[in-house]
């Protein structure tokens, strides 16, 4: 299915295609391609068609639920969806069975979306590559044998391959932006508190974010407006009003101040990736943005802080699974969990206190003179799957840390960060960069991403699957 969400929703409104036809087209594509992509853990064709028929009957009667009426979406398998099991990527397919949809899914469904099923992910959302020994390693839609990125691996591959028009992912250290970057799609980690996490299996309460993954920036803006906002079931959700993110998205970047970090982010970067990001900056400059290189507070300190917080909180969340069925957990995931049991409470609390100070310092140093920060999102294009699966556990853990080092700081900082495709490597794998904004400035980040996307045109390319 080559439509964007906006295009499909418009076509359904105009009677050019029905919700049932849209669902059938996606399900046929899942049937045809997912045996090799492994994007889904639990496809739900019966539920999708049942919902599509209801939506079709409502449309025929002139009743429209909202801006997503009839749009087929799919959800990372840590989002609770009523009637479907939640594995969280573990070998226990029914690790959780929920009576209710998570808040984000319930808002999408209320806006008219239908659910194609639950998507593959790294076990317990702990890992940046998308490998999963229980449910199959998710394949990169642009090149078989390469990782999809993780942990929202199925979300990246399903949207990249056109199996679903959009997806939800979760991002604790980069898990929306990494698969978006690897799979050539758009992924947004919103500001901490912008989107409710209620009903989503946690990994680290302090660092978890839920966000949309789509083919275009406009589609991400559309989904964000639906899922964002205060939720009484999530005490960390912000009461701040949700703007119409599409309203100013065509405003361009003339006069916008874009800072580029001269330290950390370009160090050790693959030359093709560096070149792709630099070219994206040239395009933004050509559109009228003012690009300035600046030295930013060392992101490695925030990476260490995030690591301590995430390890401790994930150990607490999954203590029961770890103690009762440790043999079910893949060795590298188990090793990362184990670390959390051994960190003293003192270090955890100091990390939480440091996070507050580092965030204020970063906001003051970087955003006093800049509207956005532009940086690479992955250090190199999607590596071969063997990079994620072969070698000693210690080496695998090191590779994981290196691959997520450019995304994790913004989880600690809680800032909105949008991953946008910016070209392809010589072997046809996507390149990407991220646009980071002030707290709750998603509208600015999306405006910059949209301006670049329209000028560069990478979103029109499709992976060679057909």
């Amino acid at each position, binding site marked *: 299915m080559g439509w964007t969400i906006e295009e499909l929703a418009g076509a359904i409104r105009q009677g050019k295609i029905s919700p049932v036809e849209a669902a059938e087209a996606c399900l046929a594509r899942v049937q045809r391609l997912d045996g090799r992509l492994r994007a889904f853990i639990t496809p739900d064709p019966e539920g999708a068609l049942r919902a599509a028929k209801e939506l079709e009957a409502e449309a025929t009667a002139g009743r429209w639920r909202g801006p997503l009426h009839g749009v087929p979406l799919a959800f990372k398998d840590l989002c609770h969806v009523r009637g479907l099991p939640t594995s969280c990527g573990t070998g226990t397919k029914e690790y959780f069975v929920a009576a209710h949809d998570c808040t984000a899914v319930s808002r999408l469904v209320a806006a008219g979306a239908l659910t194609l099923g639950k998507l593959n992910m790294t076990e317990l959302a702990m890992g940046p590559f998308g490998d999963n020994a229980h449910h199959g390693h998710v394949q990169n839609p642009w090149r078989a044998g390469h990782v999809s990125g993780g942990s929202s691996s199925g979300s990246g591959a399903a949207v990249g391959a056109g199996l679903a028009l959009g997806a939800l992912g979760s991002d604790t250290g980069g898990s929306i932006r990494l698969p978006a970057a690897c799979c050539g799609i758009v992924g947004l980690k919103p500001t901490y508190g912008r989107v409710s996490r209620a009903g989503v299996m946690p990994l680290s309460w302090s660092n978890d974010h839920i966000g949309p993954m789509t083919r275009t920036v406009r589609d991400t803006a559309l989904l964000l407006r639906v899922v964002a906002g205060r939720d009484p079931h999530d005490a960390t959700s912000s009461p701040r009003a949700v703007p119409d993110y599409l309203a100013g998205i065509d405003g361009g970047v003339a006069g916008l101040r874009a800072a580029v970090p001269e330290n950390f982010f370009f160090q050790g970067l693959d030359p093709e990736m560096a070149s792709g990001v630099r070219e994206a900056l040239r395009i933004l400059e050509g559109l009228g943005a003012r690009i300035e290189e600046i030295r930013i507070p060392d992101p490695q300190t925030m990476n260490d802080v995030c690591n*301590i917080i995430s390890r401790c909180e994930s150990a607490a969340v999954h203590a029961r699974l770890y103690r009762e069925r440790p043999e079910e957990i893949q060795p590298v995931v188990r090793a990362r969990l184990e670390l959390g049991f051994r960190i003293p409470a003192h270090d955890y609390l100091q990390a939480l206190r440091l996070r507050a100070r580092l965030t204020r310092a970063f906001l003051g140093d970087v955003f006093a003179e800049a509207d956005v920060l532009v940086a690479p999102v992955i250090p190199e294009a999607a590596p071969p799957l063997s990079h994620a699966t072969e070698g000693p556990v210690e080496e695998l853990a090191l590779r994981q840390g290196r691959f997520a080092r450019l995304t994790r700081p913004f989880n600690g900082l*809680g800032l909105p960060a949008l991953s946008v495709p910016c070209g392809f490597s010589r072997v046809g794998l996507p390149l990407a960069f991220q646009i980071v904004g002030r*707290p709750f400035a998603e509208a600015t980040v999306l405006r910059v991403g949209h301006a670049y996307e329209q000028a560069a045109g990478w979103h029109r390319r499709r992976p060679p699957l057909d």
Partner: protein
Amino acid sequence: MTESRSQQVDLAGLAAAIERAAADLALAEEPSRFIAALEEAAEEERR
């Protein structure tokens, strides 16, 4: 649960990094100031 050599190294590294960075934390610094920082910065943006 046995602690491997690499885990010991990881833990020691993380603990040292936190100790260094937290050496001059103000007494008043507390975790909830993270949320306050986000909200205050967003207010400044709106003004």
